[in-house]
């Protein structure tokens, strides 16, 4: 007996798809919508999740904030203080070491704080002068209201330019028109180049800016005002030298924050004899980010489960119906002499082609719908690879299983049984 080869049987499966055009189309449509809806719904859910997490990140959930702290003085209260120079706080070297040794760091932003009298026109105001770099505005994201932000060029050129916060500007009666005017800080004149919005609400420790900040390039600040801060009070005069008042460390993700903090703490403890620093992490934000992520994972899980269930049932029904409808045909083929596995192979080819073909079209559809939603409704959508893989593999899998199962069952019947069905 020569017997039937596999290839012609597969070809028979393929031509059969074309013979049953309407049925093939409807079956495929079931898979297309099954896959498409899962991908699209997950994209909408992921978009919402992303948006919520972004909002939290904007508040600084990924930032670790190191601050210089005056260490508690050993010995009696201020007897010899007047003649002493007090050296403490974060060092330039600390920033370098963090960048080089702590894993998960995206960037660091140094800052030096000074209190200065600011004079703009006829207005006078005590301001916090923040000497920092252009990167400050990347880490502490505040919308620009007018003018421009500090740039790396300002720093290289030691430019005497400054950026005001909105409320500081308002107190100085400055506005849009103030851009380009000069603000006097101490004895130095700075050109106002921009105004940024304040943090919403009261600045917590995750928002290191203050109401009345004025930002200047750090190097300009050191050059003009020096590194020594002199403070005079009624009874004493103290001199302090602090290299950096603050270092903001931006981590790659919220999950890097706590390990990062521990690594930084270990490093600082090694290089600082006194406890002249403080490390703050936005714990509340971290918890909120975690809770949000958990909540959205629940939401996304439910979306995936429900849409896969609904899509899967749809695919299952149409496959079961279209193949069960062909039980008699299977009986005829068996009566003529087809072996069980000839039947199974033919239907395997058919259901695979329909399921995989429908699945691929479904992926395309499922990717286009979110784009349309974003475009038309302005809702953010994010398509993640896992959703494509999940939707495709489960839907195509269900299609193949429930296409093959009735064919296999019909092939297992005695041919008379299969012939009797119609």
């Amino acid at each position, binding site marked *: 007996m020569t017997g*039937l080869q596999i290839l*012609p049987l597969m070809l028979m499966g393929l031509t059969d798809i074309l013979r049953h055009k309407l049925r093939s189309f409807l079956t495929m449509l079931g898979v297309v919508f099954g896959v498409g809806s899962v991908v699209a719904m997950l994209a909408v859910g992921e978009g919402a999740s992303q948006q919520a997490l972004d909002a939290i990140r904007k508040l600084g959930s990924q930032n670790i904030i190191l601050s210089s702290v005056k260490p508690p003085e050993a010995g009696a209260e201020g007897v010899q203080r007047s003649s002493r120079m007090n050296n403490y706080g974060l060092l330039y070297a600390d920033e370098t070491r963090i960048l080089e040794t702590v894993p998960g760091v995206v960037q660091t932003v140094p800052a030096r704080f000074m209190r200065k009298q600011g004079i703009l026109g006829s207005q006078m105001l005590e301001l916090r002068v923040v000497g920092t770099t252009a990167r400050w505005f990347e880490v502490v994201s505040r919308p620009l209201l007018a003018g421009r932000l500090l740039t790396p060029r300002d720093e290289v050129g030691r430019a005497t330019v400054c950026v005001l916060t909105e409320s500081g500007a308002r107190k100085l009666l400055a506005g849009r028109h103030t851009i380009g005017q000069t603000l006097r800080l101490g004895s130095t004149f700075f050109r106002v180049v921009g105004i940024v919005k304040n943090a919403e609400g009261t600045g917590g420790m995750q928002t290191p800016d203050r109401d009345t900040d004025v930002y200047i390039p750090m190097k300009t600040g050191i050059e003009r005002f020096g590194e020594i801060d002199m403070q005079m009070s009624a009874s004493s005069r103290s001199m302090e030298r602090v290299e950096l008042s603050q270092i903001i460390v931006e981590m790659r993700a919220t999950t890097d924050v706590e390990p990062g903090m521990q690594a930084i703490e270990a490093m600082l403890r090694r290089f600082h004899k006194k406890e002249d620093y403080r490390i703050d992490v936005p714990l509340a934000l971290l918890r909120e980010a975690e809770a949000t992520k958990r909540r959205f994972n629940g939401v996304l899980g439910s979306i995936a489960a429900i849409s896969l269930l609904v899509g899967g049932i749809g695919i299952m029904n149409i496959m079961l119906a279209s193949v069960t409808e062909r039980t008699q045909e299977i009986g005829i083929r*068996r*009566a*003529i*002499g087809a*072996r*069980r596995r000839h039947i199974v192979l033919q239907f395997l080819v058919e259901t695979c082609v329909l399921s995989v073909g429908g699945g691929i079209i479904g992926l395309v559809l499922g990717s286009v719908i979110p784009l349309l939603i974003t475009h038309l409704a302005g809702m953010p959508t994010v398509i993640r690879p896992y959703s494509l893989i999940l939707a495709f593999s489960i839907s195509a899998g269900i299609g193949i299983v429930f296409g093959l199962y009735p064919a296999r069952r019909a092939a297992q019947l005695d041919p008379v049984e299969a012939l009797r069905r119609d």
Partner: protein
Amino acid sequence: MSGTADAAAAPAAATAAVLQLVDVVKRYQVGQEQVNALAGVSFGVRAGSFLAIMGASGSGKSTLLNILGCLDRPTAGEYWLNGVDVAQMSDDALSDHRLHNLGFVFQSFHLISQLTVAENIALPLFYQGLSREEQHERVLRLAAEVGVDNRLRHRPAELSGGQRQRVAIARALANNPPVILADEPTGNLDTATSRQIMSLLTTLNAEGRTILMVTHEEDIAGFAKARIQLRDGRILQIDGDIQS
């Protein structure tokens, strides 16, 4: 399978039955009740016979033919096929037996409606693994033989009942089977068409093929050379060249 033409030419050598049933029982469970569609049937068929299985509706004719055609298995009893016990044969072996040795003609034709006439006729050849060219050649000859060669590209739904049965017969002949099983082949046809189909079957028998045919009509049974009369799943009467 041994040549059926030889058997017809040398009746003395053909005393051994090709098909032998021994006390065959087929029992169906319908709800609480058991129905004996066949209640102990024994007989043998020699190669080259033309046997009519007769009886009232529900007497077990189709059940018997399906068992003879290996489409169904007996509940009890033995069925010997060329000296082999069918109960010992695997499903694949039974499929191969149908593929190479049997041709079926049904009352309701059982053509595949999505396939053309040519594709329906070619189906056994396809499962035998013949090339497309060989299939095509055989289909043309068979269609001409039964007179449907001008309908090859049509679907079964576009044919008359008589034409459909001709297509079914062409398909049954495609594998050149020594045994043809027909279950009320004229049951859905008018008298004139019935006669044409019967003369076709008579010719096939004259060529040496064994024909097993179910019918409840006397005049149709008249074409056969032997008859078995069934009632309630038992053999009532045997006429002609049949071993009991």
